[in-house]
């Protein structure tokens, strides 16, 4: 029964958790991500102050025991706003991931499997979007649609799906001539079922890696859009807007920009470490 399983055909999962625990990146990343996610889920229940309650008498407070991270120009509690801002960042990035992974994998698989004009249409569209710098294109879309949470999700989805589509296409092209695909064709399996049963399960690992690294980019991009004022609007707290507002008081009240930047930086590092770690764990080629 000792079948020599090649790295390509081996089914990860059996020793996935073992390797995951051995990877320092993956462990540190997952702890940070777990902390951010828990904070986003349960933080609003625990925050000491109402994050949108204006109290002009308490504005520009330095951090103390009641306001752990101080207050902003309108006297709102910075700590509470950062906790809620994390929730906004996660909602935006998860929505963008859900949209782009769906669109990207479906279009990428169709392009690779059918080839011909389907491939040409999808990949030229991808090329056009890639021709713009990512953020410029997102800013353009956001400017056209007008600010708002939905706008941010749409704008970031539009710049993010081509990467997923291109990755999916190349992964599927690599599998296209595997004999189990031909066996499925010979068995009369319809195209949509071949994609679902044969391609998708064999390409999820690299897609997960790509997605977890992507979260960092999406959170950063959301912050940038909000920083520029074309993202999520007041009174909803977002890290990007908090950094923008804090910049003008950088000399006098550095805590405003500092804590929001820290939250953004730590979250991004967490997702990037998790993504790197997952790649080490899932990709047999870099495994040592």
């Amino acid at each position: 029964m000792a079948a020599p399983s090649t790295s390509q055909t081996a089914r990860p999962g059996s020793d996935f958790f073992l390797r995951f625990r051995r990877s320092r990146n993956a462990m540190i990343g997952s702890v940070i991500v777990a902390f951010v996610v828990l904070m986003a889920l349960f933080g609003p229940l625990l925050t000491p102050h109402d994050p949108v309650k204006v109290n002009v008498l308490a504005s520009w407070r330095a951090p103390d025991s009641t306001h752990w991270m101080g207050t902003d120009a309108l006297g709102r509690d910075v700590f509470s706003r950062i906790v809620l801002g994390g929730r906004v960042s996660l909602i935006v990035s998860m929505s963008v991931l859900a949209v782009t992974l769906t669109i990207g994998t479906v279009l990428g698989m169709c392009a690779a499997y059918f080839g011909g004009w389907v491939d040409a249409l999808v990949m030229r569209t991808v090329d056009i979007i890639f021709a713009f710098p990512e953020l410029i294109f997102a800013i353009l879309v956001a400017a056209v649609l007008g600010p708002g949470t939905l706008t941010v999700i749409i704008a970031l989805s539009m710049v993010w799906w081509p990467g997923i589509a291109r990755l999916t296409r190349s992964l599927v092209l690599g599998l296209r001539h595997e004999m189990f695909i031909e066996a499925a064709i010979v068995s009369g399996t319809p195209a949509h079922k071949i994609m679902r049963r044969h391609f998708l399960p064999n390409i999820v690992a690299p897609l997960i890696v790509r997605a977890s690294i992507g979260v960092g980019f999406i959170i950063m991009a959301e912050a940038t859009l909000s920083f520029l004022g074309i993202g999520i609007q007041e009174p909803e707290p977002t890290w990007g807007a908090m950094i923008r507002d804090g910049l003008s008081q950088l000399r006098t009240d550095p805590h405003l920009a500092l804590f929001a930047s820290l939250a953004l930086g730590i979250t991004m590092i967490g997702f990037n470490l998790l993504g790197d770690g997952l790649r080490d764990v899932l990709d047999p080629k870099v495994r040592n």
Partner: protein
Amino acid sequence: MSAVPILRIENVTKDFQIKRSALSGENLTLRAVNDVSLDVYPGETLGVVGESGCGKSTLGRTILQLTRPTQGRILFDGNDITRLSRKQLKAIRQDIQIIFQDPYSSLNPRMKVRDIIAEPLENFSSDRSAITRRVHEVMEIVKLPVAYADRYPHEFSGGQRQRIGIARAIAIRPRLIVCDEAVSALDVSVQAQILNLLKEIQRETQVALLFISHNLGVVRYLSHRVAVMYLGRVVELASEQALFENPKHPYTSALLSAIPEADYSRRGTRKYLSGDIPSPIDPPPGCPFHQRCEKVQDVCRVETPVLDALAPEHWAACHFPNVSDKGIRDGA
């Protein structure tokens, strides 16, 4: 052997376009299969032998419509299947199946054995319990314990994986199975088991086999008739006995003399072919084999020989098929 062939390959040619360079846009044509005509009868095994690159696998793939022939027709049950739409083709999938060479890449690593074998059945039936019953039935036929049904392919050895592939191919009760180098990747002892299994399945189900292999010993063991391919063409076609005992084409004789012989008294008659198989992009004029043939004459360099019936049920494409090569053998 009944007189009506289940599969009739008629003058099939398959060309591949190869880009010479991206800049000039000049294309080269590689003729992988060149004007091949073969019949396969119900319940028989037709062996197809030849060196790597002779087009035998491409021929198999055109039969399954994994690639469409450039010219010619492939008739299954008298119906041309080369011009069917995707939808019409699906009906044919019940009748023609394939067993691949590589038992590793031919099974999806993320599917359970049960689901792999059930896949062709699910495409033509929605009766879950009947499918499960059939899966267990074919697992017994290929001698895999039913308890293994919920395991994944990487838990099996090469021979066991090939049994899974065979189970998948026979599950839907096809009438023709193309075996593309079905045992070439296996150990010799495992090869024998798989060959016996195929023989047994054929005896019970009367399935026709098109057995593609470079291994003459294996082909001889399984086949009723054998076609020898060289550079995309069939150069000799005969019953197993006639071909192995009385080869007419010098290429066939050379192939036969290359079979390892355990009997010492019969050694020393090896014919060696010089040179490589010519490029199918730029085939030589005349007989495709003339550059390597010991009996070559002037006419061979000019005129391409056609498949001639030299005896009942024995065809060869050679200008001098009856010239004895006894002298060459003894002299070596």
